[in-house]
């Protein structure tokens, strides 16, 4: 009888690994002031943005790559990277008819139909291809509500005051090595403004696609939720299969004013490299939200299945009194993938509350690390945090690490931390099989049970995507 091989069961084929054959306009590789000026010029940016870029660049030049993470990877040569590439298509198109059919086909294959008839009802999409946004759907419909949803490059001209006020306000140009790099060379990204009192009638989403070889993707997303507004945001990402590593260093900033609610969900499915660890995306991302107003809330959901390297800590600064920050995460690593991910919850205001639920699943030779900080500042009286970070291991070669840091400068707070590390055992698998469940389904139901706390928090539309990617049976979470 063949020995149980869990590796076969969780090894999924990467279906988004194709390359789109389209002419790309690339600038020459390398990073210097001229390149930055060129990027800014291409986008016809106002002076304040060029200044922001140049400030970031001079800061970045004096910075070093962070070495504190639990990640081992080949040296990144920043002068080999192409910092801007865009498909050669008509610019500023007004309708889909003008969009290159090759791109339409690409998004169809990725399961993101953009055409009117096939659009997923209730989800507006901003499609980012390499360094530019190729189309944003439902833009006009959303305008009726006063909602601005467009690419960041467009927003710079549409609402320059908002951009000047908020860009870099949550993640400053000098925040960290990768955020500074992004601030210097960022290409496109999504912008979203939800006006006072408006509850966004549909989910907004950005789909990031890296296509061209040799480029890095440095998008920047800015979400502003005004008083008493709410929005659910979804993000997806994929890339072709290639033997060389590609860098993705994004920044996402969220601002929630009084009583505003933002839920940001990510399915990160960048190419993870092959079975022996060759290729894959280096994903160094800074995501942070600030609950600026009282009673506001920001929720991060993430399902991380891709990338060869993941370095990502979606965080919340709880500045407003009674504000709420939540982080729900499932990170799956397989083969030679490495993930170092977690969150920071910074409690500033009074009676603030944060919840962290992190589930790490490691298989193959992979390494999965949870890293988190819960920090309570002196004036944050009556605040609470609950953290649970669990790890599930497959086989004998995968590893799981947890680095939770708790700092409290106020004695009236309540902080709870729970953590469990377990191994999916052959006995557990066999128990399921003895009841007639095949190996693959057995892995699914065990993993599904493990992730239940996170899965039950995902938005409905997201469940389907998550299911497709994780091969998890979701009956348990929605039944």
């Amino acid at each position, binding site marked *: *009888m063949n*020995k149980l091989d869990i590796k076969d069961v969780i090894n999924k084929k990467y279906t988004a690994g194709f390359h789109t054959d389209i002419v790309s306009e690339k600038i020459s590789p390398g990073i210097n002031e001229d390149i930055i000026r060129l990027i800014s010029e291409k986008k016809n940016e106002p002076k304040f943005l060029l200044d922001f870029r140049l400030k970031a660049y001079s800061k970045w030049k004096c910075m070093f790559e962070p070495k504190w993470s639990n990640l081992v990877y080949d040296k990144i040569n920043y002068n080999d990277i192409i910092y801007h590439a865009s498909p050669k298509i008509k610019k500023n198109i007004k309708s889909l008819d003008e969009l290159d059919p090759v791109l339409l086909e690409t998004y169809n294959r990725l399961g993101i139909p953009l055409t009117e008839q096939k659009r997923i009802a209730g989800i507006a999409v901003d499609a980012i291809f390499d360094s530019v946004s190729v189309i944003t759907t439902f833009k006009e419909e959303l305008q009726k509500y006063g909602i601005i949803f467009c690419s960041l490059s467009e927003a710079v001209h549409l609402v320059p005051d908002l951009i000047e006020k908020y860009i870099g306000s949550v993640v400053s140009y000098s925040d960290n090595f990768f955020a500074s790099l992004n601030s210097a060379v960022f290409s496109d990204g999504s912008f979203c403004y939800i006006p006072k009192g408006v509850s966004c009638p549909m989910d907004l989403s950005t789909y990031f696609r890296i296509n061209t070889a040799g480029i890095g993707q440095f998008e920047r997303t800015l979400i502003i939720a005004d008083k008493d507004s709410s929005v659910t945001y979804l993000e997806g990402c994929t890339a072709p299969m290639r033997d060389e590593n590609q860098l993705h260093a994004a920044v996402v900033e969220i601002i929630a004013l009084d009583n505003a609610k933002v839920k940001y969900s990510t399915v990160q499915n960048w190419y993870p490299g092959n079975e022996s660890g060759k290729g894959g995306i280096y994903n160094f991302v800074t995501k942070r939200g600030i609950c600026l107003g009282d009673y506001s809330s920001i929720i991060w959901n993430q399902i991380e299945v891709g990338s060869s390297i993941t370095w990502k800590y979606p965080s919340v600064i709880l500045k407003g009194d009674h504000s709420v920050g939540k982080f729900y995460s499932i990170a799956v690593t397989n083969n030679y993938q490495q993930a170092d991910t977690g969150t920071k919850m910074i409690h500033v205001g009074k009676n603030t509350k944060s919840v962290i639920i992190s589930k790490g699943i490691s298989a193959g030779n992979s390494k999965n690390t949870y890293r988190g900080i819960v920090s309570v500042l002196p004036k944050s009286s009556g605040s609470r945090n609950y953290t649970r970070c669990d790890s599930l291991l497959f086989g004998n070669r995968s590893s799981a690490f947890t680095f939770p840091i708790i700092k409290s400068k106020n004695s009236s707070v309540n902080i709870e931390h729970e953590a469990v590390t377990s191994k999916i055992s052959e006995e557990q698998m066999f*128990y399921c099989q003895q*009841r*007639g*469940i095949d190996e693959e389904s057995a892995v699914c139901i065990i993993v599904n*049970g493990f992730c239940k706390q996170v899965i039950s928090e995902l938005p409905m539309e997201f469940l389907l995507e998550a299911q497709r990617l994780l091969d998890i049976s979701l009956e*348990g979470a929605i039944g």
Partner: protein
Amino acid sequence: MTFKSFLDISNLSVQLDKKLILSKLNLKIGLGEIHVIMGPNGVGKSTLAKVLVGNNSEYSISGNIIYDSFDLFSLSPDEISLKGIFLSFQHPLEIPGLSNFQFFKSFVNAKRKYQKLGPVDNKEFLDNIRKFMKILNIHEEFLYRSVNEGFSGGEKKRNEILQMLLLDPKLVILDEIDSGLDVDSLKDVFKCICSFVKNNNSLLIITHYTRILDYIDVDFVHIMNNGCIVKTGDKSLAYDINEKGYSIV
């Protein structure tokens, strides 16, 4: 026996790291028969149960097992289950986060798929479970707890029998169902088993103790020692053992 054996084990030898655990074991079980295997610790009783349900990857094996005209060694563990062999585990496993109800639904649907039937209707399924839970004296909240997580010994064993009733197998192997069970639980469990075997189902009970004979009528008692069956008899053999110990064989 007037009919063909339902399960036919012939010359079964099982080795683990060069240590012989089962040695040329022979056993035939007919449809509707109830067999008991008794023996001291470490004679290979649980190994026999494991091999019968296909959990044998660590062993080297010789001999034959024919079950319902299939070569058992050609089947994977889930196929063995789908073809009607059920093992009640001595130590049922825990699956954190997965509710009993979802687990039940998963395996019942796997079985229905095998029988080329559509997925089970939720309401009908729930009614069915509740009926069995009543007989087993199991409380409703049991359904929504994680599989075996934090269950008492008695609850775990009741849970095994509930799963047996839901799967409706043809051959049931009870591996030390009586260990860790108090008298009340033992009564509930055997009440179910007795009514279950009335439908011409076969039963193989593995145990140390004769106390279960107070709850069920058995057809054959086998005494196992040194990896094979050394003596076979009827109920009275078990009582002899009870009085005089295993030394009589």
